């Protein structure tokens, strides 16, 4: 797994629960060092171990932790550059959801060796979509749920986002747009730092 993913788990834990909590999780996951390098590649099993360890330390279900991580990726100040990159996906939430098909390609444009599972967005009706993460690790759909809910808030859109479980080897997330202009979204300027 790419170090960016593991590092995101580390940053989430540290920023939300403190350095001490992260060190405990890192120790119980049997990590040699408590710091992931964002630009290096790690064994896939490490990611599963640290998510499990973080959940154990927080005494929460891994699915809840993953959802919080997805939310953190969009909302925390440290992740502001990532949130900006996501906002490039569309001018409104509907366009953003439909752009998710291209997300793995966009990610690879940014970081050549970052491989995301193939994402597929199927329209299920007006303002309704089913997001499928083909071959993604079990439960990773929860991270997508947290991320999508935070992005809906970011756009000021009222949307219903729910985990549907693993269907035919794909993590499935249902998305329903309830009100496009529900609230004032967070500002987004194309110009960096504007």
């Amino acid at each position, binding site marked *: 797994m790419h170090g960016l993913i593991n590092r995101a788990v580390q940053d989430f834990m540290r920023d939300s629960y403190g350095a001490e909590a992260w060190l405990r999780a890192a120790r119980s996951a049997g990590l040699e060092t408590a710091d992931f*390098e*964002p*630009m*290096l590649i790690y064994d896939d099993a490490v990611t599963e171990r640290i998510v499990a360890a973080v959940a154990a330390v927080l005494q929460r279900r891994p699915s809840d932790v993953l959802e919080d991580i997805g939310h953190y990726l969009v909302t925390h100040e440290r992740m502001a*550059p990532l949130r*900006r*990159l996501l906002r*490039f996906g569309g*001018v409104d939430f509907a366009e953003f959801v439909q752009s998710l098909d291209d997300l793995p390609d*966009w990610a690879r*444009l*940014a*970081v050549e060796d970052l491989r995301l599972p193939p994402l597929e967005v199927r329209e299920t009706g007006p303002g309704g979509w089913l997001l499928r993460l083909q071959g993604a690790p079990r439960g990773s759909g929860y991270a997508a749920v947290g991320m999508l809910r935070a992005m809906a808030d970011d756009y000021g859109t009222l949307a219903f986002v729910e985990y549907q479980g693993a269907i035919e080897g794909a993590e499935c997330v249902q998305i329903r747009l309830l009100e496009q202009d529900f609230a004032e979204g967070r500002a987004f*300027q*194309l*110009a*960096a*730092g*504007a």
Partner: protein
Amino acid sequence: MEAVAALLDQLCPMHVQIDPEGVIRHAGPTMHRLREGGGVGEHIFDLVSVRRPQGVTTTAELMRLAGRKLHATFRTPPRTGLKGLLVPFGEEAVINFSFGISVTDAVRDYGMTAKDFAPTDLAVEMLYLVEAKSAAMAATQRLNRRLQGAKEEAEEQAVTDLLTGLRNRRAMEHTLARMAEAGQGYALMEIDLDYFKQVNDSEGHAAADHVLRKVGAVLRGVSRREDVPVRAGGDEFALILPGLSAPRRIGALARQIICALEEPIEWSGRNLRISASIGVALSEAGQDAEAVMRRADLALYAAKRAGRGRSVIHRADLTLPLEIGKRAARRATSQ
């Protein structure tokens, strides 16, 4: 022309239409975002100046550039760079503009949004790429800095004796070789602890380590900035003294070191006592480091033989004794 204008407004929102005199008759919606009124009613040369091809000053010359790539800038600040293409349309002409490489400045200067660009325009992808690559590059640079720090630490450890913090034998040999190459004169002082084995045997390793650290502190204390104190291994120390050649000064320094080392060293409420024997050799022009170390060994051997707690400076009449000192023996077997 009106139907064409509506078409072009969507396909190329940054275009202008000019009449045969070069006056702007229509401007796309994004051009209206960039300049009040989109420049409509003004002459095209009041809106932009053509940088390349050079020397374009009349409307007729501009019209002749049909189909070629134009480089232009706005006449008034911000003087954003533009790429353009002029296509004749009957007597009139359409010029489509884009930002090209200046797109990052433009979106900042004009507060542009994705809606200001045609959906087929790659501007947004380009902006994404610039930001994504900058973030990825920053992360890579941070990694590089950490790796460089780790490398420097590893290099420092490779030449450092971890117990005393002095340079190690490897560093000593390297330093001597470098000075020999540079032709720099120096004195090499080899310092062998006396009675150290007794401390080690009767008081144990911890006490011995304490003594060695203390010796390190003494040698650092007497060193000038350019001197290099060394723990060469076990209870063998050395001091490289660049530019020092006066026997009297060297003798005084050796006595100072021996006196300091003979001070009782407190350990767990007890006083440990050691001393030291010192052999000194002065570098000679054209002589390699090995030869200087061999002569310092000889002097050290002579000092030991003359009784402990003494120093000897190598002279030409010190010949190799039959009994080879332990350092010389070790060096001989390691070669």
